[in-house]
């Protein structure tokens, strides 16, 4: 299992959110960490986890975890289920409208437990 190491710093705090078995490959779920909604994705093909904000800044709803994941060129993305803009799962950048990018979070798996790092 590869885990995403986006923006981990000294101040980062790892929070366990679920077991790996709670996740279905190639789909996402939403985790609640300190009143923040974070979308967590599991790519079965890459065997890799990603986390970005769940709030879709364009559709203005908490839905990104429910989008389809895939690739655009070399970038791993989720497509917003509302209006289909793509968000880079490693950086949170919105490919179509970069001014509406979101935050990305580091993810790790230890003893089958998935943790997300928040600042």
């Amino acid at each position, binding site marked *: 299992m590869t885990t995403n190491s986006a923006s981990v710093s000294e101040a980062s705090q790892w929070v366990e959110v679920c077991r790996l078995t709670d996740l*279905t490959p190639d789909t996402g779920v939403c985790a609640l960490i300190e009143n923040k909604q974070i979308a967590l994705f599991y790519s079965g093909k890459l065997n890799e986890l990603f986390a970005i904000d769940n709030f879709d800044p364009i*559709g203005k709803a908490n839905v990104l975890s429910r989008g389809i994941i895939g690739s655009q060129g070399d970038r791993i993305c989720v497509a917003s289920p509302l209006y289909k803009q793509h968000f880079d799962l490693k950086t949170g950048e919105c490919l179509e409208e970069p001014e509406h990018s979101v935050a990305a979070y580091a993810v790790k798996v230890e003893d089958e437990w998935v943790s997300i790092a928040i600042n």
Partner: protein
Amino acid sequence: MTTERIIVVGNGMVGHKFIDTVINSDNPENYEIVTFSEEPRLAYDRVKLSSYFSGSSVDDLMLTSEEHYQSSGVVYTLNDKVLEIDGDAKTVTTASGKVEGYDKLVLATGSFPFVPPIPGKDQPHCLVYRTIEDLEDITASAQESKVGVVVGGGLLGLEAANALKNLGLETHVVEFAPRLMAVQLDEGGGNLLRRKVESLDVNVHTEKNTKNIGAGKKRRYVMEFTDGSELETDMIVFSAGIRPQDELARNNGIDIGERGGIVVDNYCRTSVEDIYAIGECALWDGKIFGLVAPGYQMAKVAYAHINGDSDQFTGADMSTKLKLLGVDVASIGDAHARTPGAQTYTYEDGVNEVYKRIIVSEDGKKLLGAVLVGDAESYGTLQQMCVNDMALPESPEQLILPASDGSAGASMGVDALPDAAQLCSCLDVTKGDIVDAVQSGCCSMGDIKDKTGASTGCGGCAALVKSVMDKELENLGVEVNNHICEHFEYSRAELADIVRVKKIESFDALLDSHGKGLGCDICKPAVGSILASFWNDYVLEDKHIGLQDTNDIYLGNMQKDGTYSIVPRVAGGEITPDKLIVLGQVAKEFNLYTKVTGGQRIDLFGAQLHELPLIWKQLVDAGFETGHAYGKSLRTVKSCVGSTWCRYGVQDSVGMAIALENRYKGVRSPHKIKFGVSGCTRECAEAQSKDFGVIATENGWNLYVCGNGGMRPRHADLFATDLDDETLVKYIDRAMMFYIRTADRLQRTSVWLENLEGGLDYLRDVVINDKLNIAQELEDDMTSNIGKYQCEWKTTIENPEKLKRFRHFVNSEEQDTNLAYVVERDQRRPATEAERENHIPAVEVTA
């Protein structure tokens, strides 16, 4: 500038075309248009008149409407005939005594059917075939008749014969000449056409000259021929050619040709100043033009002259291509090889009943004409070569010989066509127009039709127009790339073939063998849909769940705030009071906004993810099934109440709608599919705006295909008539599966049909005549899909693993706090951004 007053006498196709040309010109405000028609309605499509017998209504045939004329400032009078013209005072006087002044007068009086002067021709049940009223008379007469005779074996005669046959009569065609379609066909072509027509149970009698119509012994009448033979019949339809309706001009001092017709010059001017004649009443260079395209040209020329332009009418190509009694027939140019020195090549295939003959110039360099019977596919190519004087290939016979691999004969490179070549004669669209359209961004047949009108008349030029479009796209360097996305170098139809033929059962297997990358939100749902169409697994299975689009993945319709709407299936729109109460109770308990849909169902809005299974548990317990409102699949079969209650219904439309909805529910397809079933021709279910429309007749069902509402509405086309239940279902099975196999991603049936080469006729060939020999396969695929139907919500609420995903947070029972609602008209709706900012008190959300 003062306006000029134009009176148009006659509101047939050509008269209307003239008016339409003025209305759509750059300066319609310069003209005041007044028109008179002796018929009870405005212009309708006489070319498609015979479709009236196969279910088209008068409305379908109308070319314009009174509202349109009114809003365009056209003054019209129906049921009133112009009787007098005063060329000096510039006035006309009508039968009702109306007197109107004009600046310019346009005569578009058309033609009337020629009835040979046979004693007995004026009795009842001796009819003609020209107007909608004539068709009504023929229908009425047929109800009291068993045998019908058409006098005249030309184009219209054979159409009339088809009509009599469809009305259930024993049908005969009586022709004076030695063969059918003597004007257009040579002996070989005429003979083959006769064989084909006779094999369809139409009796052909050639070289018969009727001398008397008397009282019959067994049937109503007996026709006595000059050769001593007789034919008994109950009714007679005369279709022995047309004569120009020139009486008005003749009686008012306008020059008439020796054998009739109002003499006009290249500007369509008659012998009297400021009076024009156009269409079938006009005689140009000693010729009457009995086709609509030259009439349209005359309309444009006359308008141009009135408007101060100098366009001229210089004759017209009289080539024709049509399907008569299901037989393809075409005649081009000098079909009879009358040009001095003309040489011919003939190809005859007695087994497949194909006859082709080309007529070439003495030096063998130019094509002068052609006759095609049984296979008219090369019509477009040959007609263009002929009218554009293009050089023939070295071995001209290649143009009609089948290629050795069995495919169609050699075709002409469209590059060789001049820009001025008229590809669509109905709408007068040239190759140059198509090229311009492509250069301005059109890249599909749908675009081309919208922009230029090409192929929207008879449709005969579709194949040629498409080749010109494809070639121009290629010339422009537009890569005609139909790849679905960057992950698969295949079109959706190709992927569907791969999945079906190689029996691929998952996206990952397809991606590994035929794609690259991870896939995306384009190819994943498309492949998910294809897999479901052929194998119909549960869509939330682990290997399929990541392919499901926004709505499918949670089996609900996501709304703007991330909540869902729920639509249980209400097959045919029939629901018991008890079930209606359950819907009300559930909506009340979960405080769902409730609305009745256009598809005769109830939509319940505002359910949060965690509420979906709770709601569906109650619905499934009450006997509801999922309505697939979230899927690209069969949505609803809308119905009217039909013969069980309605005073006018002729079949049980609700019963049929429920049967169809239950048959096709859950079938995934390239886009959503809607059905409608109406219990009579009043069409209260609006079936003609659906992908598959079914309309009851006295004898069964008429099937319409490929209609839709929405952004670009399209009337469905009549596909087959008077079907029994079993045949109806068989045709729908085949057509729907053929659509599933061959359509593009998210392509509705309407656009699919418009882009299907060969169009409606081809679809009929595949579905009804099994041209591709796949009808059984298509039915089997449909049967297999239907056999695996399951209510996805019932499966889901019985599966605790799947239910885990129906909550907002993976690590908390909290709910989404971002939801805010206001009450409007006694129900809640999402708060707008302004309402959120103004902190209008939100509604309490229950559960």
